[in-house]
């Protein structure tokens, strides 16, 4: 069985692509044949985060329009041979993605015995975002602890339970998870940022993971290596935990507390 997972958020720039790259990499690392698809037509970025931008020859839209086969367009990851990237096209034609076309690609991935297909949604609630979620079995809603992101996530949760194939068939929404990213425990403790409990309570869906704000994320995107590869970084470790939970591991949440400072630092700041 192939499981399709959409990474979505409504609001832009909250960490969907960062998350798609790390979750897909983590699933492959755990032995599952995985494809990660960039649905952000016109604003291709996943290829950069995955570090395969120079190997893109054909893209998602080429496959949909029968200009290339899926095999030709799938880019095999440098590190894991069970991980593939399907790049978004740089066309400005937003109509290039069609529901039938997307369905055909997903069916072909299923026939090719992929275990997971991770769909990196564009921001907003327009066509690309709609198609990214439409066929999903599960959803990971990426949210930052900030008012507009939380509100947009709730909007997306509403769409997930009404505007997907599952919902239209009356099967109800599939599992939905919250992934809280760019979390800063120091600011939470200072009362400057909503806590994981606040966000969980407002949105009322379970938390898959909390990814701390980390300098390592920029370093990872600079070098085109998904941050989950960086076992030293707390963001990488938090993503590895989230992958574990997706696969059913029971793991405690980490990195929710501010690192304890010594007396000197407390008195004189950092």
């Amino acid at each position, binding site marked *: 069985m192939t499981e399709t997972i959409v990474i979505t958020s409504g609001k832009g720039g909250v960490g969907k692509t960062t998350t798609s790259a790390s979750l897909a990499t983590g699933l492959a690392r755990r032995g599952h044949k995985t494809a990660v698809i960039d649905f952000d037509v016109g604003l291709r970025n996943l290829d950069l985060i995955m570090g395969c931008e120079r190997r893109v020859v054909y893209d998602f839209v080429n496959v949909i329009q029968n200009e290339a086969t899926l095999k030709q367009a799938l880019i095999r990851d440098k590190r894991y041979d069970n991980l593939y990237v399907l790049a978004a096209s740089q066309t400005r034609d937003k109509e290039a993605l069609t529901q039938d076309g997307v369905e055909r690609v997903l069916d072909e991935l299923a026939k090719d015995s992929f275990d997971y297909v991770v769909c990196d949604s564009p921001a907003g609630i327009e066509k690309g975002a709609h198609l990214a979620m439409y066929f999903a079995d599960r959803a990971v809603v990426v949210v930052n602890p900030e*008012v507009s992101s939380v509100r947009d996530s709730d909007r997306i949760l509403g769409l997930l339970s009404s505007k997907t194939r599952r919902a239209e068939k009356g099967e109800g929404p599939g599992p939905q998870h919250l992934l809280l990213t760019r979390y800063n425990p120091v600011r939470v403790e200072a009362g*400057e940022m909503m806590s994981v409990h606040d966000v969980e309570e407002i949105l009322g869906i379970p938390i898959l993971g909390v990814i701390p704000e980390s300098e390592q994320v920029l370093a990872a995107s600079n070098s085109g290596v998904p941050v989950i590869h960086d076992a030293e970084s707390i963001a990488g470790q938090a993503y590895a935990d989230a992958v574990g939970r997706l696969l059913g591991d029971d793991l405690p949440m980490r990195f929710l507390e501010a690192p304890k400072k010594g007396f000197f630092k407390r008195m004189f700041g950092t």
Partner: protein
Amino acid sequence: MSLLDFLRPRPKNTANIARERLRIIVAQERATRDGPDYLPLLRNELLEVIRKYVHVDTDAVQINLERSSDGEVLELSVALPEVKAATGT
């Protein structure tokens, strides 16, 4: 907190403010989410009419769309302000 922070005016606990605002707006948007597109507008116009007569908060009008086997029921509730004890005029 560093020594310098003691000298600065401390910001309020804005995380609590964010949480309370979100609680209200999310509940409001959920109530009208699956309903027709005119519900939010209807709600606002009702609010304006009510405000001609009594002063109520912007979140005083709650709309709920209930679906049952017999059809849909639009439920409106208006929280009126507490009546202050009449002052002897």
